[in-house]
C-alpha cells in the first residue's frame, strides 16, 4: 500500500492473510486517489460481513449499517447530498442475498452511486455457507447435500433490470479493478462492479487460481453499448469469464429526474419556509 495515498489510514484489518479483500481495498484507495477526491467528500457504505468492513479501514466517511441493507442508506445519502461521492462495498450475500430486494429496486431507482460487490461466492463472516452465487452442487456445512439452487448471475440480472453500468473485475487484477472502479464512480447513475474475490478460508472451489485461469479482459472490439450482446456476453461463465465493462448506457439519474434536485443546490441545504407552512395550514379553512 502506498503511504502517500490520502485514503490510507490503517493496515490493521480483521481479514485473513491471502484474502482478496486486501487487493480490493488497495484498488479502491488508488482509484479514489487517482480521481483526486477529497476524503471528507467521499462516503463508503457497507452492510455487515467481511467485505462490509471496508469502510472501517479507509480514510473517508463511513457507514456500516445492517446486513443486507447497504443500498438504502447509501442512495438516500446521495439524494440528500449529491456532492458526496457515494460508494458501496459489500459482500455477495449482503448485496444479492439478504439485500436482493434493494438490489433490484435500486437498479430501477438509478441513483448515482457505485456498488462494489466483493463476490467470493460464499458467506465469509458466518463461516462458509452458500451465497446466491455459489455454484450448484457445492457442499458446505449447511448445504451438506450440495447447494441445489441455480446460482444467480448478477451481471445478467443487473442488465435485465435496466442498469446503465455493469462491469466485472477480479481482485487478482488490481489495475483492471482500479480502472473499473474509477469508471463506475464517474458514471452518472447506479454502477455495479461485481468483483471476483477468493475467500481463502471458506471457498475451496473458486480459488485465486480458479479465477485467474478463467478471467480474460474483453476484447477492444467489444461494444459495451449493445444491450442484447451484453446480455449474451454476461452469460459467459465457466471455462472463460469475461471481465470489463459489460454494458454501459448513458441516461439520467434519480436526481436529474426530480427538478428540485437537479440544480446546484443540494437537499441538505434547502429549507421550507414557515410562511409556506402557514399557507398550507390556511388551505384547511
Amino acid at each position, binding site marked *: 500500500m502506498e503511504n502517500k495515498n490520502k485514503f490510507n489510514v490503517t493496515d490493521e484489518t480483521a481479514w485473513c492473510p491471502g484474502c482478496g479483500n486486501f487487493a480490493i481495498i488497495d484498488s479502491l484507495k488508488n482509484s479514489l486517489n487517482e480521481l483526486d477526491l477529497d476524503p471528507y467528500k467521499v462516503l463508503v457504505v457497507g452492510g455487515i460481513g467481511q467485505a462490509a468492513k471496508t469502510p472501517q479501514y479507509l480514510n473517508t466517511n463511513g*457507514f456500516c449499517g445492517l446486513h443486507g*441493507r447497504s443500498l438504502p442508506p447509501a442512495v438516500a*445519502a446521495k439524494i*440528500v447530498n449529491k456532492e458526496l461521492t457515494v460508494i458501496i462495498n459489500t459482500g455477495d450475500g449482503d448485496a444479492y442475498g439478504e439485500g436482493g430486494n434493494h438490489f433490484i429496486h435500486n437498479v430501477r431507482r438509478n441513483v448515482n452511486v457505485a456498488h462494489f460487490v466483493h463476490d467470493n461466492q460464499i458467506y465469509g463472516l458466518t463461516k462458509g455457507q452458500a451465497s446466491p452465487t455459489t455454484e450448484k452442487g457445492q457442499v458446505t456445512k449447511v448445504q451438506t447435500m450440495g447447494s441445489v439452487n441455480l446460482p444467480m448471475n448478477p451481471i445478467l440480472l443487473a442488465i435485465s433490470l435496466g442498469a446503465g453500468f455493469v462491469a466485472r473485475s477480479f481482485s487478482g487484477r488490481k489495475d483492471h479493478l482500479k480502472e473499473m472502479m474509477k469508471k463506475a464512480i464517474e458514471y452518472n447513475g447506479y454502477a455495479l462492479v461485481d468483483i471476483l474475490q477468493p475467500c481463502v478460508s471458506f471457498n475451496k472451489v473458486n480459488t485465486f487460481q480458479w479465477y485467474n485461469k478463467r478471467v480474460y479482459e474483453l476484447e477492444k472490439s467489444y461494444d459495451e453499448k449493445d444491450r442484447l450482446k451484453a446480455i449474451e456476453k454476461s452469460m459467459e461463465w465457466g471455462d472463460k469469464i469475461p471481465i470489463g465493462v459489460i454494458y454501459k448506457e448513458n441516461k439520467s439519474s434519480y436526481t436529474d429526474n426530480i427538478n428540485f434536485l437537479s440544480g446546484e443546490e443540494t437537499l441538505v441545504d434547502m*429549507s421550507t419556509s*414557515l410562511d409556506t407552512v402557514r399557507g*398550507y395550514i390556511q388551505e384547511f*379553512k
Partner: protein
Amino acid sequence: MDYNILIGGSAGQGMETISSILEKILQKRRYEIFTTRDYMSRIRGGHNFIQIRFSIDKITSHSDKLDLIVALNEETIDIHKKRLKNKGIIIGEKDFNYNDKKFMGIPLNEISKKIGNLRVKGSIAVGSVLKLFGFNNDFIMDILKKTFKKDELITVNMNAIEEGFNCLEKIFDVPKGNSKDKILINGNESIALGAIAANCKFYSAYPMTPSTSIMTYIASKMEEAQIVVEQAEDEIAAINMAIGASYAGVRAMTGTSGGGFALKVEGLGLAAMLETPLVIAEVQRPGPTTGFPTRTEQSDLKFIITSAQGEFPRMVISVKHPEDAFFQTVRAFNLADKYQIPVVIMNDQFLADYTTTVDPFDIDKVTRDRYIDNFIHGEYVRYKITKNGVSPRIIPGKIKDKLVLVDSDEHDESGHITESAEDRVKMNDKRMRKLDYLKDELIEPDFFGNKEADILLLGWGSMHGPLKEAVKELNILNIKTKALVFGDIWPLPTKLIQNEVKGINKIINVEQNATGQLNLIIKEVLCVSCTDSILKYDGRQLSAGEIVDRVKNIIKLK
C-alpha cells in the same frame, strides 16, 4: 345543540365527496365538527359509513345517537336505524322498499336521470340535508369549485344540490354557528404538516393503511416544498433510507402501521446504535398481522416500546388530537436531533382519519433545533463520551477534513469496531445516559375533570377526545371523575399519576385493546395497578357515551 348525521352506502358511491362537501359547508357556517369514518378494506361495495357531528360547542368525540341518516342504499337503514334518536329521520331514494314515518324519500334516480348524470345523487342528497337544517346555498359554489375543478361538473352538481333543496322542508332548528375561523383537519394531515413545519426533507415509506395519508399529504407538496417523498420497495428499505438521509444531514421520517413497523424493528435499533436521529410514525390498526386494515385499535404499545434486540433509549409519543399531532411531530424532530435517538409517534386509525375543527396551528410556536456543529476544533470523533451521552454531531462532507464514521457493531469513540469489554460498557452507558436527561423533558399527561374525584380514568393517545367528553358528562351526572391522558408514553412520565392515584379507589384504564397495555406499563414502572378496565377491541372506537355507560356499569349505577 348537537347534531349527528350518518351517511351510509357501499364503497364507490362517493360518500367521501358528499361528506366532505357537507363538512365544508358546516365549517364555513362556523360550526364545530367531528367526523368519523368507518370503512371496509375494499375499493367498491360492502358497507361504509361516515358520521358528521356538528355543534356550536367544541366536540371531541363521535356519538352513537343519530339525528339523520342519509341512506345511499337500503342496507344502511337496516344497519343503523336502531341508533336513531326519537325525533331522528332517514332520507334516501324514494323507491326504497321501506315504510316508516321517519323515512323521507327523495327521487334521486329520477332527478339524476333528468340531470343526465347518475353520479350526482350524492349532491342531490346534500341539497336535501341542507334544506332539513334550513341552510341556504351560501358557500356552496366555492366549495364545488374546489371539489370538482371542471366547469361542467361544477354546474351539474350545483343543479343537483338545488334540486335536492326542493325535495324537502326544514325540520331541524339550528342556532347560527359562531366558532372562530377554524381549520378542518385530521390526525394524519396534522402529522404531515408537522413534519413539513419541522423542515423534514426526506420521507420514505411503503404504503400501508391507515398510515398512507401522511405520505400522500407530504407528496402533494413534494415539488413546492422541495421534500423528497420516496416510496420504498419495502418497509425495510424505507427505514434504512430515512436513516441514511438523516446521517447525510437532513431531517428524515418514515411512517407505517404495525405490520410495516414489524419490518422496521431492526432499523429502529440501527438508528439508536448509530445515534442517528429518526422520526417514525406508527399508525395503529387492529392486529394480529393484517387484522382489520381499515379499523382502529391501540394494541401496539408494548410492542413499540420494547421492539428490537438489545437495549437502547427511544422516545414514544402517542398523539392525542390533531393539534397535538402537529406540535408533537415538530417536537419529535427536535427531540430526535437533541438526543440523537429514534422517536416514534404513535397514532391510530381513529385519529388518523377523523376530521375536526381546530384553531389554525400557530406557526410561531414552531422551533427547529438541530444541534448540529458547524465547526470542530481538533480531532473529530463521532461517539465522544460526554456527560449527557450526546456526542457532537456534524454533517459529513460539510467540514473540511472531518470524517463521520458510524457502525452498527459495538464501536469506540471514533466509530471503529471494538471487542473490548471496557469500550462496550462505556458506550452502552453513554447511550443509556441520554434517558436520564430525556426524562426531565417529559410532558406529564393531560388532566381533566374534578380534582375531588373518586374515579380516575386513564387513557392514552387518541382516547383523549372521547375521554374528555365522557369526564364532562360524568361530572354533570354527579359521578365525580377525573382523567389523565398520556401523550408522552415512553419513558413514562410518573409525577402527575403518582399524585393523582392517591386515595382513589377506582382507577380505570380506558383503552382500545384487549389486554390493557397502559395498565401493564404503569404496573411495570410504578407497581400501581388499575382496579377496573374499559377495553374495546372490535375495531370500532369507544365513544364518550360508551365510556360513560361503562363507568356507570362499573360503579353499578345503571
